[in-house]
């Protein structure tokens, strides 16, 4: 049984029935799922949740699906990794990475939102699911659609990494690449969704899809021992996850799963695609779109749909935001990999690089609890760092050659991997 009551326009407050509808007919504002929190409060407890399987559906009362969830049985509940070595490097005692690089089955936070969206697509009786994507969403939709037995059509910009095209096609999806950037793809898909009646997870199913992002925040709170972090640093592209993590934290308070606690939520963008951070720094609500230019393709959205809500959530929490240049992103990817053994995509490098800036700016203090959100896996974007890392040492299969190399590399004083 579900605790959902309706869809409501976030701007003008008009109510709509639960249906595949994402935009208010009166003011074009985004629609959001409404819940009966009093009923949820009576129905949930920490103990009940702790007994459930380790997937995102352990918070099902706060998700907009009917009946027993079937999509994404292994998605979510990714590790919250305590980062001692990275923390020492940055002078932060309680530093954590929320590690969605190992989300099942497609290694990004998109497995959360898509689990909810495809559950809803099935409920509504759609037979074709689709999305506009820069890659991570594409692979998630393709994989979950395959398991659900639905047709799948994926739209991506022509420039995405090969791995993301292969990683969608392999599941049996039809992939269409568009000569243009993500914002062009998104506009086209809005028109296609309107005309062909497909279930676009991030367009006409968007109110449900975005709710799935709350689970990232729910898990952080549960994994910290039913507590909120002092700070959480999130990447921002279209603006889905950041406001929903903030909403998730507030919902946990609302339904009594955590006691009162404050958190600051911070926004990280790549310098080459930072319309939200620009508006944040300028102190305006007006987000001026940009043409993205960054190696962080998964967050290269110049015209963020929910940018306004990112600003609002950041400001409401007393958080801040900053940008990371391409070299800073690469350095942060390498730092995370070499200190904690976690290989993040450039969006994750962006988030860590910005967290470092916030620490340097003293907005984050050494004794505070900090969570850095890593939402995608570096194995999908090796192109981004391939030229920025050391090349392997090549030798013949002769011990003499290795002896020489060993000397050249400084012997046992330095590990081979750190060689020139």
């Amino acid at each position: 049984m579900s605790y959902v009551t309706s869809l409501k326009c976030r701007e003008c407050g008009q109510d709509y029935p639960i249906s595949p509808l994402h935009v208010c007919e009166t003011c074009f504002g985004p629609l959001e799922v409404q819940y009966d929190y009093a009923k949820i409060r009576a129905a949930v407890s920490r103990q009940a949740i702790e007994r459930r399987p380790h997937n995102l559906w352990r918070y099902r009362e706060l998700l907009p699906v009917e009946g027993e969830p079937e999509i994404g049985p292994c998605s979510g509940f990714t590790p919250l990794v305590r980062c001692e070595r990275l923390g020492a490097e940055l002078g932060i005692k309680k530093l954590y990475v929320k590690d969605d690089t190992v989300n099942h089955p497609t290694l990004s936070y998109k497995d959360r939102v898509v689990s909810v969206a495809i559950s809803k697509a099935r409920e509504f009786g759609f037979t074709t699911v689709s999305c506009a994507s820069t890659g991570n969403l594409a692979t998630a939709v393709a994989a979950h659609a395959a398991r659900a037995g639905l047709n799948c059509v994926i739209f991506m910009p022509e420039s995405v990494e090969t791995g993301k095209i292969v990683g969608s096609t392999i599941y049996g999806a039809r992939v269409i690449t568009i000569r243009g950037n993500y914002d062009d793809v998104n506009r086209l898909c809005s028109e296609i969704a309107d005309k062909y009646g497909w279930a676009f997870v991030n367009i006409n199913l968007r109110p449900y899809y975005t709710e799935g992002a709350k689970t990232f925040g729910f898990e952080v709170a549960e994994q910290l021992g039913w507590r909120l972090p002092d700070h959480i640093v999130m990447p921002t592209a279209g603006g889905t996850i950041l406001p929903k993590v903030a909403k998730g934290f507030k919902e946990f308070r609302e339904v009594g799963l955590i006691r009162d606690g404050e958190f600051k939520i911070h926004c990280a963008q790549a310098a080459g695609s930072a319309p939200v951070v620009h508006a944040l720094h300028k102190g305006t609500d007006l987000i001026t779109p940009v043409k993205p230019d960054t190696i962080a393709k998964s967050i290269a959205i110049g015209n963020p749909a929910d940018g306004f809500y990112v600003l609002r959530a950041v400001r409401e929490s007393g958080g801040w935001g900053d940008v990371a240049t391409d070299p800073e992103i690469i350095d942060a990817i390498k730092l995370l990999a070499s200190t904690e053994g976690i290989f993040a995509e450039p969006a994750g490098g962006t988030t860590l690089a910005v967290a470092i800036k916030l620490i340097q700016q003293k907005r984050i203090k050494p004794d505070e609890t900090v969570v850095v959100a890593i939402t995608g896996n570096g194995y999908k974007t090796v192109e981004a760092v391939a030229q920025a890392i050391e090349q392997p040492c090549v030798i013949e299969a002769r011990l003499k050659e290795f002896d020489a190399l060993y000397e050249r590399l400084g012997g046992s004083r330095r590990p081979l991997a750190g060689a020139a």
Partner: protein
Amino acid sequence: MPIKVRVPTPLRRFTGGVDEVVADGDSIKNVIEDLERRHPGIRERLLDDSGELRRFVNVYLNGDDIRFLNQLNSKVKDGDDISIVPAIAGGR
């Protein structure tokens, strides 16, 4: 040759359910005025009280977001293609 305007679902109640209509005008602003004459009620869905484009409406002229052109003053000529698209979509 008139200007073609693609209309999204939330606005089709003003166009008798039609998804593509024609209009005249030499700028986006004037095209919207002409749309209002042909389909009364549509203007206030697109523009706010101060006459600016609403936050959640995107308008594309031949595929380009008018915010990258000259906003509502962007020049329009016969045969151009205008598309009105709700801004709320996406997520990589």
